[in-house]
């Protein structure tokens, strides 16, 4: 595995947005799976009663974890919008305009949605604006 990652880093000029997108999709996908593991574990504490569950929620409500949550939103948005772009390719839409599609959809639209979600979290849960 490392030889292929090393080879990819050394051999290719990363000007091909397709390669950046592919790597991003993989990395964000794995991160999201790991998050899902944590999430299912936390939610399964529901079966241990209010004390255990509320304690877990309290841990994850600290500003530090809320900032991580903003990061999670970024990861989700990247993965989702890149996924939309990939599906468009598979449908044959946007043939010949891949680089533009990556920047407008994955990065552009993604950024908009990210900000729409991140700013409320930042304001209300991290900075505790009332």
């Amino acid at each position, binding site marked *: 595995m490392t030889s292929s990652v090393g080879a990819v880093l050394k051999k290719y000029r990363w000007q091909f947005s397709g390669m950046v997108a*592919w790597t991003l999709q993989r990395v964000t996908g794995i991160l999201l799976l790991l998050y899902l593991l944590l999430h299912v574990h936390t939610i399964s504490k529901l079966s241990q009663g209010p004390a255990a569950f509320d304690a877990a929620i309290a841990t994850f409500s600290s500003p530090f974890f809320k900032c991580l949550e903003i990061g999670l939103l970024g990861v989700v948005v990247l993965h989702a919008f890149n996924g939309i772009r990939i599906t468009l390719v598979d449908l044959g839409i946007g043939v010949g305009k891949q680089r533009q599609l990556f920047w407008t959809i994955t990065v552009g639209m993604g950024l908009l949605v990210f900000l729409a979600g991140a700013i409320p979290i930042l304001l209300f849960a991290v900075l505790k604006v009332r």
Partner: protein
Amino acid sequence: MTVLDALIRVQREMDGSIGFRCSCRVGMCGTCAVQVNRIPRLMCSTLVKTLDAEVVTVEPLPHYPVIKDVAVSLAPFFAQWRRAQAAFRPKHADAPTLAIIGKDSRFRQLAATKRDCITCGACYAACSITGMNVRYLGPAAINKALLRVLDPRDAARADRLKTLDQSSDGVWRCHTQFNCTAVCPRKIDLTDSIVRVKRALLRPGKALTV
């Protein structure tokens, strides 16, 4: 001055032992494909001034065994070519009349955009999947197989589709990174070809109308 011109000059004036391949010098034969500043290209079609760099680095194409300097063996490329059964197999070998593909037929129109492959090997070199997975068919082989699969005169469609469908090294290993399309000197949309095969495998009855 092209990169090929530069290399020939180096060979004549500086080091007569350097090994590289060339033939037609006009971008038609596909022989001189190498990696220039880390992008697979035809040497004869790459003007040095368009590289916009102080230093021009010429390397052998990646994913192929190196024979000498920048001359590589295209054996892996053609092994996949054969595996995808690039050669046409006629339905009616002894037909009394010609099988005509009208110039307005959909096959003809699509084929016109896919059949210019000069087997230069650049796409196979550019693909990051072939770098990891030596058994992956690669864009050129899949493109050629698509051409045959769509051809109404070809007899081996089911066979080819089976090879293309293999989970470990068929079309499903392509993740539409578009490296191949970016480097093809004949401007074939290889990613489009591969996606068409995927769609054909999903709806077998629609293989011809892909």
